[in-house]
């Protein structure tokens, strides 16, 4: 049973996206990657559910070119 919610949850998705964009504006590639790592850790802990985290990892992998 999947537990990861992929339906939109923000009442204002544009505002959420903007917050993420603004957080990396003017960062170099390396700084942005470092920032993303910290953010991922914070969000992962907030979710606090290994199953959901693994589903999220699988979704992110399947949507990218790295594999």
């Amino acid at each position: 049973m999947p537990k990861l919610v992929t339906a939109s949850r923000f009442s204002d998705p544009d505002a959420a996206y903007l917050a993420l964009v603004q957080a990396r504006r003017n960062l170099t590639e390396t700084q942005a990657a470092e920032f993303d790592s910290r953010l991922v850790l914070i969000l992962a802990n907030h979710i606090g559910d290994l199953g959901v985290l693994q589903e999220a990892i699988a979704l992110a992998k399947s949507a990218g070119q790295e594999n």
Partner: protein
Amino acid sequence: MSEARKTIYRYDYRRSRDQKGAAVARRPVVVVGAGPVGLTAAIDLAQRGVPVVLLDDADRIGEGSRGICWSKRTLEILDRLGVGERLVRRGVTWKVGKVFSGDELLFSFDLLPEAGHKMPAFINLQQYYLEKALVDRALEFELIDLRWKNRVVSVDQLNDGARLTVETPDGPYRLDANWLIAADGARSTIRGLLGLEFSGVTFEDKFLIADVHMAADFPTERRFWFAPSFHSGQSALMHRQPDDVWRIDLQLGPDADARAEQEPDRVRARLDKVLKPHVYELEWVSIYTFNCRRLDRFVHGRVIFVGDAAHQVSPFGARGANSGIQDSENLAWKLAAVLNGEGGAALIESYDLERIQAADENIGHSTRSTDFMSPHSGAERRLRDAVLALAPKAEFARRMINSGRLSLPKVYDTPLSTPDEDVFAGTAKLGAPLPDAPLIRRDGTETHLVESLSGGFELIYVGDAGREARLCAPHGIKLTVVGEDLQDREGLFASRFDATPGTAYLVRPDQHLCARWRGFNAAAIARAHMRALQR
């Protein structure tokens, strides 16, 4: 090394009784390797009445410097074997660890926040002192025939044993063993001779391990640094040992030149940064790379692997010798029971099952610590560094930091346990060593639960208003009544075991809990006993 340590114990080679005649002697148990693990096996077997021949290719202890941290469970085992108190007196007791990032303290942890245990969470003691204590103890047993400068050079498996060729200063001789215990270390000759593969990972990072002699008032704690200013970009570890000796581990990365890095000038240049302004002498320096790997099976017919011969881990977490000593205690009572006809043949299989579970847990922990310390790629390092960056600000990140999760005994999932039918709270668990608790003997003297155990099967019954007078444990089980033979000094036995009047606990000879009931039922106890003996 020009400044080598001098503490070396030498032993004499003696021609043995098995080198005399033309006939090949046959011995019930031969242990190969008198390291900590082989010595433990020999002593435990002898203490259970089994004669042992113990072979070692060297004639001395203390050439190198390896293990320093001995865990509570190891100390409990060694206490049963008669050397635990001596080691604790000789060692440095510690329980606080600190982790730094850069030069900033991230957090500290207390390994044994609980009172009422005889043995401390850890002591630090040079491995050669531990080996010396075990050799002294082994020499007290007539049943142990310890032969130095006896190198095993060939092994043939027989249907009911193994045939060895042993080289000595008087030339080779042959020796048959009903059971052969291979405790011959990481480069195990026997593993090689049987053509057995070791599977797992080798870490590329090299580590400088130095023991220095120095008068310093650093705290008696395990201190671990990620990227301190005194050793840029890499990790460092410092531990106190007795005799004003300090262990310093410095990560050097994969490209370090192992020979050049051992040059005293080079070593001093690195250590000066850590230790200045202290004056110190180098006792021992070596460069290591680490492996996390194991044999697919530990039991191969009549040949049984224990310790580093069976599995290896990186030292972060102190699981090497500690887990090997636990292999030996697991095997000794089982082999003794099979040899004296009490145990079924499947008991030896349970050694394989239980100790592979333990090895996998240890390998898992050691691999994760080593991965955290030396990330495999830039991308992995970035994630690791993110954890370190968040740690001062967020508790969750501090808990992700892994500089070695320290060795705890494995809780076995094992057919030797009888599943619980009643509900139990508390910290005692089926398949785990008993948690310790302070008790009082009949004569009013103080003792602890673990040290009071007999070393055989034991039924601990919680007194129930005089009913115990009529109880009789099945043959082969010692009955101990809490409330009569022993009193629960501080109520800690009751809380750790969730003990209520009439509760009974069946304990294996290796001090692991294998069954428990809310009531005394002789038939159920006998069944659980047979099950634990695989009969």
